[in-house]
Structure formats: C-alpha cells, structure tokens
C-alpha cells in the first residue's frame, strides 16, 4: 500500500515538473528572460559606475551574485501566479498526493529553468568583469549551491503573495531579508577564494543551507498556498 503510494507520489511529482518545463519551453522568452536580466544588470555597472579593472575585479563577484539574486527574485512571481490564475493550482491542491511534494517538484522545475541557466552563463560574464580563473570556478560553485536555495525560499514568498494583485515587489520585500545570508556567504566565499584562502568549510556551510531549505521550505510554501487559495 505505502509502496504504491510512493510510486504514485513520484509519478505525480514528475507530471508536475514536466508540465512546468513544457509550458516554459513552449514560450522560450520565459526561459531567456531571467538570463537577459542577469546580463543586463551586470552590464549596467561598467556603464553606470566605472569600466575600470580596478573597480570591476574586486567588485565583480559581488555584482554577479547580486544580479543572480535579483534575476531569481524577479522570476519568482511566475512560480505560482499563472497556475493560480488559470486554476491549475486548485487542481494541484486537490490531488491526493501531499501538497509539499508537489510544491517541491515545482521549486525544482523553477530552479532547472532559472537558476541552472544562470550558473551556466556565469563564466562568460565573470570574464567580462575581469574575474580570475580560480575565482570563477568558486563563483560557479557557490551559485550552483546557492540558487536552489533562492528558489526554495522564494517559493514561500511567492505562495504568500499569490492572491494579491501587484504582489511583485511585496514579494521582494518579504524575501530579501531571507536571501541576505545566502548572498553574504556566497560572495564571502568568492572573496576568500580570490584572496587564496581555503573555501571548503564555507561551501559545506552553504550545502547545509541547501539541505535546510530542501527540508523546510516546501512545508512552509505548501501551508502558504493553502492560505492563499482559501482566499481566492
């Protein structure tokens, strides 16, 4: 009995992920947009502040992290909004599987569609802001561990602001305080690497963040979804 229930849970999660990925691939600008935003924000700094190596090299890691954080933040609004508007979310809540698993599936899909492409693009931009080889590697690693955390925590905020019109920036307000530790550790690790210090411990700590977020965030987000829908 339990065995088959688990099987059904997994296949339901797979169906949820597949639907999200398919929908996104069907409108590829959805995929490209966070990426483009990422590039644009990074680009604005040489233009708006200073194009010199002495400014860009030390600041580069931080700028990239901030840009990635903002990109993820802005993509969060889509995480549940379309599903809410067209009623998919109601149907999801009425599925017999535990809601937090389905939320987890959606968060993973969100990361695959947003965070992962950012990580892939990072080396290119890192070169443009004159980061060095070793730093680039560490930067990619921190983003690889950090962006899923951003997606998972972000899901809570997205769920809480669902019923509300123009929730976009209310979301930012709620979520940024939760993002700040990730940002601080992410950039701290990159800077430590740039100074030649060992970073294994800090990376492990970020891994712990990820584990924590994976286990707790889907529950909070599921609870938040229930609340938002009650109001719908």
């Amino acid at each position, binding site marked *: 009995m339990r065995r088959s229930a688990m099987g*059904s849970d997994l*296949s*339901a999660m797979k*169906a*949820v992920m*597949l*639907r999200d990925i*398919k*929908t996104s691939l*069907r*409108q590829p600008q959805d995929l490209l947009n966070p990426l483009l935003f990422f590039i644009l924000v990074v680009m604005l700094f040489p233009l708006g502040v200073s194009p010199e190596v002495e400014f860009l090299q030390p600041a580069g890691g931080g700028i990239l992290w901030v840009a990635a954080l903002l990109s993820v933040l802005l993509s969060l609004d889509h995480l549940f909004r*379309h599903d809410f*508007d*067209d*009623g*998919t*979310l*109601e*149907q*999801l*809540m*009425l*599925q*017999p*599987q535990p809601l937090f698993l*389905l939320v987890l599936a959606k968060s993973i899909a969100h990361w695959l569609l947003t965070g992962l492409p950012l990580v892939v693009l990072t080396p290119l931009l890192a070169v443009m802001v004159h980061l060095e080889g070793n730093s680039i590697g560490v930067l990619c690693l921190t983003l690889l561990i950090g962006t899923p955390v951003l997606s998972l925590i972000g899901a809570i905020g997205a769920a809480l602001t669902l019923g509300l019109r123009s929730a976009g920036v209310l979301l930012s307000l709620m979520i940024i305080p939760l993002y700040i530790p990730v940002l601080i550790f992410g950039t701290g690790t990159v800077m430590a690497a740039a100074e030649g210090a060992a970073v294994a411990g800090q990376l492990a700590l970020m891994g712990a963040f990820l584990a924590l977020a994976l286990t707790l965030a889907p529950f909070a987000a599921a609870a938040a979804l*229930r*609340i938002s*829908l*009650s*109001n*719908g």
Partner: protein
Amino acid sequence: MSEPLLQAVNLHCERDHRTLFRDLSFSILPATLTRVEGPNGSGKTTLLRVLAGLNDNADGQVLWHGEDRGASRESFLRNTLYIGHRPGIKAMLTPLENLQALTAGRGGCPDSALRQALAGTGLSGFEDIPCRRLSAGQQRRVALARLLVADEPLWILDEIFTAIDAQGVEALERLLVQRVAEGGSIILTTHHDLRVPGMERIRLGDSDHEEVSHGL
C-alpha cells in the same frame, strides 16, 4: 446505498461581515444530483469551495463517509472531482497535454481515451493546438472533457455551462443524467435552467438576516 458520501454539518461562512450561510447542514447521497441555487453573490461558489476543501475559512464540519474529512483526506481527494470557474487549463499547452497533466495525479489515463474524450466534446481536430488559440467556449470544453473519463464518485461542478453553446448544453445535461444513473453523485451550480428528474436543491441567499441580492 443510503450511507451519505459527504455530509455538511452546521457550516457557517462570513465574508466582509456578511453572513453567507449559517447552520447549513445537508448530506449528499450516492446517485443524486444536488443543485446549489441562489442569486448572484449568495455564496454558491464559496460553498462549493468549502466542500471541495479549497476554502478553510468556514466554520463547521465536513464529513466524508461519516468521518471527519481531515482524517480521511487522501481518500476524499482521490474520490472527488472539482471543476471551478477557472478550470486549470494552461493556455500554452494543447488540449491533450492539459488532460494528461490533469489526470496524472489521479492514476493517469491512456492517451487514446483522452483523445476520445476530446472528440466527445467536439474538439477533434483541435487536440494538438495550444489552448490559447481556442475560443472561450472551446477552452471550457477542454476542461469538461475530464468528465468523460472521470470515475470519481463525487463531482463538484461550478457553473460548467458557462460559454457553452446550446447543443453543448443539451449534451452535457444528458451526460449528467447518465452519470447519476450509473451511481455517481454530483453537486453543482448553474444559472442555466437545469431540468433533471429527482434533483435535490440547496437554496442560499434567503437567510432572514441578510437578503444578499434580490435578483435583478
């Protein structure tokens, strides 16, 4: 046969300090069609969402097969089908993909059956076109195709006749009658003049306290 599927006990719901319903109790028996009636704004949608478990903000109890619904949540969800105002159709996906995704969490359904269901709603030829390119009524039909393959004992349907043309409405009525004859239970709302023999009625909006709206 006479044990009720779903029982509502003393439901009470307020919105904006207006009481929509109070001390509302009723049972839904197998093989019955129940229609929730009332003028605009009387709380029909709200009631159906409470019954489906989408709205937690009402007081009172909902029993499923005599047990508290919270305790038997999974069994309740497995055996209930809800289609609301917004039926969960993704504009970017095709009708077929939409149905696949909607049935996946409930054991799935072979594509051939789904295609047949779509044909049954008059959408043959549109199975593989993104839904956003369908008209208002065609999009509703995609959602209704679920009814042709659903085997849940209880259906909760909110204004399913919306945007459907006259012929479609007739066919849909036949489907509902047939479903009840098979032993399924249905609770629904509609402003359409529905005629089904043996239909139960729940009337909202006549509470002494607050006449919500007197109909136009």
